[in-house]
């Protein structure tokens, strides 16, 4: 099992190197083979060869990209199935690396949580790779793009399946660098280059805190292994736990694009759309939430950090949703929406439902990837991503339209799409935390060590059961009630705003009259079928949660959230219905530019951070020249001046020399006479 997991990670990793080094070579090798298979077509020989070279069987980079990920998907499915059948923790260590202090182990750890998230990652990665073959068809640098996507997949799988915190950190950072390369794929545009740098630097700031958090927790647990850290959690001092978890939250905020390290995500939309789907919707940004879920006992024992997480979640939820409402670019709407949905997951973790947060992570992975890939289809068809150039596309692009409708429904939380179920779980738990009630069945998976299953052997519970987790003592302060209230209220308001912007985007893109100059037609099959396939889990995933207690929707909460959804969607629909040609968001009036610019946080960071650092850098360079080096050069000049003083006696006049000689002799004689 562990070996299978290791193979699942190594395959995309090898594919990345192979793609980088041998991509075009494989194409050359396969072209004659493909030519023999296909029947001759009219046209020049060169054109024929080119067309053939682009088709899947002879497309070297595409094969190198898709096949290993497909195999990995199968492997992770097998692993997940095996884990569901026999839920237990499987760990495997390759080697122990001595560092002189605390050693760390290159190890993998398969349990329910990691297996199911790994499966999600592989599925989305496969869909994106297949999609990219068509999307990036005309791109000359497709092979390096595909190689980086493979490398990213390997890194994300490493983060998910790692059994050691430092190995997790390696995967974490490699994801960050792949994100930099992929956002910067269109590097000839300076704005894109800047966006890539911004993404990397903001996440790096978070990652430094993350590394320090790993130090704190690892050193306190005398091991960097995740299982060992969790087992040691009851023995750690409260200060250590709070410090460690708060530092980990830095990395989470950076990677999962939460306030205050979120401004990189909207700009990251400058990258190709499949990249946005994979990295900035389903996987990398979910890594932060995943890590908190993995180390959840540490957070439970330090409720202060969960409270901080709640505050961050509430701010991000509301702020991003409001900003999404005012955007004019389809991808930016989805980007802000991602921030908002991730805040939901963070909020779920903050109020105590790990399973709910992971549930939302999985369903969000499905529907957000779906939305992004569908957006890619729309963008390819229309030729631009600006909302005002779209409209009336539902007749021309039926498959895309229906898939994206399901996606938007899931986003807005409309039953029966999965988003409704997962959001509801989080809101219910928030309500219970606010009222300080013991939640139904949650904490339960932590309160008793489970080998054969928690409250049920079906659905998520079995998959998410952790083995031999510490018991939370009664004396432990629980999650404060105000956190629950904060998350609950913010969550409800966000439900309404989410429904509003989802409806607005859906209407403006697909309804009304066509505003694009290009005649729209359906996207190529390699693009639209992954979108359609992703619509299935987006619709159905919610029902898999009905099996367990705490993932089933509560009727009261469901009704309230449906009310808010209807309010938001209905308001927008009514405004739009008045005049389908105009954008309903115009009603925001003067507030719209502020929201569109993300509350001008970018400018604030520029003034508070970027400019002072650059000024400091210039100061350092001038100090180096004028102060430090001046001291060095000054010592040389000082030595020469001293020499110059003595040189004054060398005036070339022999009589002066002899006078000096005489004076010296007199002094010596006097000294001898006086001193003896």
């Amino acid at each position: 099992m562990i070996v299978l997991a290791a193979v699942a990670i190594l395959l995309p990793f090898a594919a990345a190197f192979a793609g980088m080094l041998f991509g075009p070579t494989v194409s050359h090798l396969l072209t004659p083979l493909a030519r023999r298979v296909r029947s001759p077509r009219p046209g020049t020989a060169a054109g024929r060869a080119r067309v053939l070279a682009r088709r899947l069987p002879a497309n070297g980079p595409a094969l190198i990209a898709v096949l290993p990920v497909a195999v990995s998907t199968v492997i992770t499915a097998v692993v997940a199935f095996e884990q569901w059948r026999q839920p237990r923790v499987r760990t495997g260590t390759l080697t122990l690396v001595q560092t002189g202090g605390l050693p760390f182990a290159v190890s993998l750890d398969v349990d329910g949580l990691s297996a199911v998230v790994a499966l999600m990652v592989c599925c989305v990665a496969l869909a994106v790779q297949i999609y990219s073959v068509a999307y990036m068809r005309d791109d000359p640098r497709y092979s390096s793009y595909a190689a980086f996507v493979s490398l990213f997949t390997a890194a994300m799988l490493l983060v998910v399946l790692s059994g050691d915190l430092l190995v997790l950190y390696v995967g974490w950072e490699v994801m960050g660098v792949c994100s930099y390369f992929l956002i910067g794929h269109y590097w000839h545009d300076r704005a894109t280059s800047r966006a890539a740098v911004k993404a990397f630097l903001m996440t790096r700031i978070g990652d430094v805190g993350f590394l320090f958090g790993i130090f704190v927790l690892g050193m306190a647990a005398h091991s960097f292994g995740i299982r060992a850290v969790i087992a040691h959690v009851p023995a750690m001092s409260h200060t250590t736990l709070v410090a460690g978890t708060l530092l980990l939250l830095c990395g989470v905020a950076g990677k999962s694009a939460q306030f205050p390290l979120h401004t990189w995500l909207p700009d990251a939309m400058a990258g190709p759309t499949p990249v946005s789907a994979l990295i900035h919707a389903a996987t990398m940004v979910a890594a932060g939430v995943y890590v908190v879920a993995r180390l959840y006992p540490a957070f439970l024992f330090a409720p202060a950090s969960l409270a901080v997480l709640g505050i961050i979640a509430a701010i991000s939820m509301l702020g991003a949703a409001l900003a999404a409402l005012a955007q004019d670019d389809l991808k930016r709407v989805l980007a802000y929406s991602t921030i908002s949905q991730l805040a939901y997951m963070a909020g779920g973790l903050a109020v105590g439902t790990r399973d709910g947060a992971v549930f939302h992570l999985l369903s969000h992975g499905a529907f957000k990837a779906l939305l992004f890939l569908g957006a890619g289809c729309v963008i390819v068809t229309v030729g631009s991503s600006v909302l005002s150039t779209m409209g009336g596309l539902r007749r021309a692009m039926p498959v895309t339209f229906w898939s994206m409708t399901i996606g938007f429904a899931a986003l807005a939380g409309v039953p029966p799409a999965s988003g409704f179920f997962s959001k509801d779980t989080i809101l219910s738990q928030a309500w219970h935390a606010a009222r300080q009630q013991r939640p139904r069945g949650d904490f339960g998976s932590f309160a008793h060590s489970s080998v054969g299953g928690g409250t049920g052997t079906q659905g998520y519970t079995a998959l998410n059961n952790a083995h031999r987790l510490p018991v939370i003592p009664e004396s432990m302060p629980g999650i404060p009630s105000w956190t629950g209230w904060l998350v609950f209220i913010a969550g409800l308001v966000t439900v309404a705003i989410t429904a509003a912007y989802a409806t607005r985007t859906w209407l403006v893109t697909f309804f009304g009259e066509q505003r694009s100059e290009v005649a729209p037609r359906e996207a190529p099959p390699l693009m639209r079928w992954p979108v359609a396939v992703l619509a299935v889990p987006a619709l159905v995933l919610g029902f898999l949660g009905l099996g367990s207690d705490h993932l089933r929707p509560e009727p009261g909460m469901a009704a309230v959230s449906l009310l808010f959804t209807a309010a938001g969607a209905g308001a927008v629909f009514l405004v739009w219905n008045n005049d389908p040609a105009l954008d309903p968001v115009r009603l925001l009036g003067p507030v719209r530019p502020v929201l569109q610019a993300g509350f001008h946080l970018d400018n604030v960071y520029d003034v508070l951070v970027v400019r002072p650092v650059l000024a400091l850098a210039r100061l350092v360079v001038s100090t180096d020249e004028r102060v430090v080096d001046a001291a060095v050069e000054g010592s040389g000049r000082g030595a020469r001046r001293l020499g110059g003083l003595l040189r004054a006696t060398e005036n070339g006049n022999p009589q002066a020399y002899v006078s000096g000689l005489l004076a010296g002799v007199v002094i010596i004689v006097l000294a001898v006479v006086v001193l003896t």
Partner: protein
Amino acid sequence: MHLVYPVVIAAMLFSVGVYGVLARRNAILVLMSVELMLNAVNLNLVVFDMRWADRLHGGQVLTLFVIVLAAAEVGLGLALVLLIYRNRRTVDIDRLRALADRDVDPDSDISAIPDDEGVRR
């Protein structure tokens, strides 16, 4: 006669010689002052030889040495003064500063010796 008289005369001669060496500007006068110093030393040597009167008469022997060396040295010295006069047109010691340590421009021709004033090259 007491030793004091010739010794005092020798001392006075030596002092005049030292003054001449240190203060005279003309090179020839400096050489003459050196002669004066040497002869004062000679006088001292002879006087003390008469006082000690040892078997080898070391004082008088040394005096002969000094006379010969003084002659040789003055010959050489005058030859130098003559050459300096031919090249520099002056024997004023104060103006002969070629060996002074001065800032030399590193990019200039190394073979150029810094000039004194009014020198013919």
